[in-house]
């Protein structure tokens, strides 16, 4: 027995993302954002996309490029405060933005990745976050909000290291939403700063197991500047 290899280049990795697709994008700020795969998606040109990402990056980088190119129709996110373009696009109704509290967003994605339908939580009860949400009363007599699972057609993931089978490892705070989204998409595409041969990752050290990952894209040794420390 042996495991197979799923290595592919960035352009081919995103080539079958159709118009109207839902696409999860990893990252919290710069760390963990798959800038190369996003750039490939811009070049690919699929439109009417629903993007699911914790934040909207900053002007001129990351998913802001999908906004500027007109490819993003909807955004499900927890916070867009660092991207004035996105705030403007929301206010002008050019993009439909759905806000989800950050921990609920994380857990709805994980719930999708775990093959469940929803979870019940009291987060947001007593605020406008609870408005319009389905409620369930549990045997303890308390009422909870139904938080439906989030899944997507594709997930774009940034990893520090991968092997050809798709096992992934993340670095520091670049982990964030990446392992959750890797579980929750029908097709998961991971870019990795370092692609090792099979066996190059200790099985105890893997953050996302290969069965969740469909395609692995190796990044160039010299990373584009956008991955670096943000100068302010």
């Amino acid at each position, binding site marked *: *027995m*042996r*495991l*197979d290899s799923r290595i592919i280049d960035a352009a081919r990795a995103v080539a079958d993302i159709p118009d109207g697709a839902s696409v999860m994008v990893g990252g919290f700020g710069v760390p963990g954002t798959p800038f190369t795969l996003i750039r490939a998606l811009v070049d690919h040109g699929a439109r009417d996309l629903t993007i699911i990402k914790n934040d909207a990056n900053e002007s001129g980088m990351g998913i802001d490029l999908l906004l500027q190119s007109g490819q993003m129709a909807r955004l499900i996110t927890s916070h867009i405060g660092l991207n004035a373009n996105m705030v403007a696009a929301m206010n002008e109704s050019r993009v439909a933005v759905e806000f989800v509290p950050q921990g609920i967003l994380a857990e709805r994605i994980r719930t999708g990745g*775990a093959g469940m339908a929803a979870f019940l939580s009291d987060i947001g009860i007593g605020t406008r976050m609870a408005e319009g949400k389905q409620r369930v009363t549990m045997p303890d007599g308390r009422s909870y909000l139904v938080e439906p699972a989030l899944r997507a057609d594709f997930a774009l993931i940034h990893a520090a290291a991968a092997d*050809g089978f798709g096992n992934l490892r993340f670095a520091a705070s670049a982990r964030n939403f990446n392992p959750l989204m890797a579980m929750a998409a029908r097709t998961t595409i991971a870019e990795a700063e370092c692609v090792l041969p099979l066996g190059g*990752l200790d*099985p105890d050290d893997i953050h996302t197991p290969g069965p*969740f990952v469909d395609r692995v894209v190796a990044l160039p040794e010299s990373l584009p500047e956008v991955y670096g420390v943000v100068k302010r």
Partner: protein
Amino acid sequence: MSSSDSPRERMLARAARDIRAGMVVNLGIGLPTQVLRHVPPALPVCLHAENGISGVGPVRAKGSEDRNLIDAGGAYVSTLPGAAFFDSAVSFAIVRSGRLDLTLLGAFEVAGNGDLANWMIPGSFTPGAGGAIELAQKARRVGVITTHTDKAGRPKIVASCSLPLTAPGCVDRIYTDLAVCDVTPDGLVLAELAAGVTTAEVVAKTGAPLILPAGEIPRF
């Protein structure tokens, strides 16, 4: 691969042929695990164990076991290059989210409509379901491997399960020492015959109505 021409080995070999390159596969204890002997070594396949392993490798020889590394059946296994360990929640996330391409399971009873009973015999065998429920219900494809009849000669394929179900309508294909049968929307179809076995024998030993295809039935 000894006695590879016995009906039992042919059944295992036939099931092995449905394990395809790139699949993530979970094999139940007993007959399903033995299918492994017939999987070509060069075929890229990822074995999943529900206690938290992808890339399970061969069972270790006595004396070289790793005390921390068992599969869900308790066998001391090895890992392939590219294996990963994870917790039980992640393990079943793989199963439920559609990342498990195939599971092969044993059966006490399997019905013509795909109902499977393989975890409980009220009053005599009630150890708990373990991970069988999720595997049966959520693997993309579910195969059952079983002798066509039990030791008393009674059919294991029945019109309707009398035992508590593991999952309803979950089985796609049944591999026995006599035949391969497919669960279809129209009913149970006799898809293949074992060497030397007649259609009449299979029909006689099957407790569920069996649809016979037109034309010659393939042999395995």
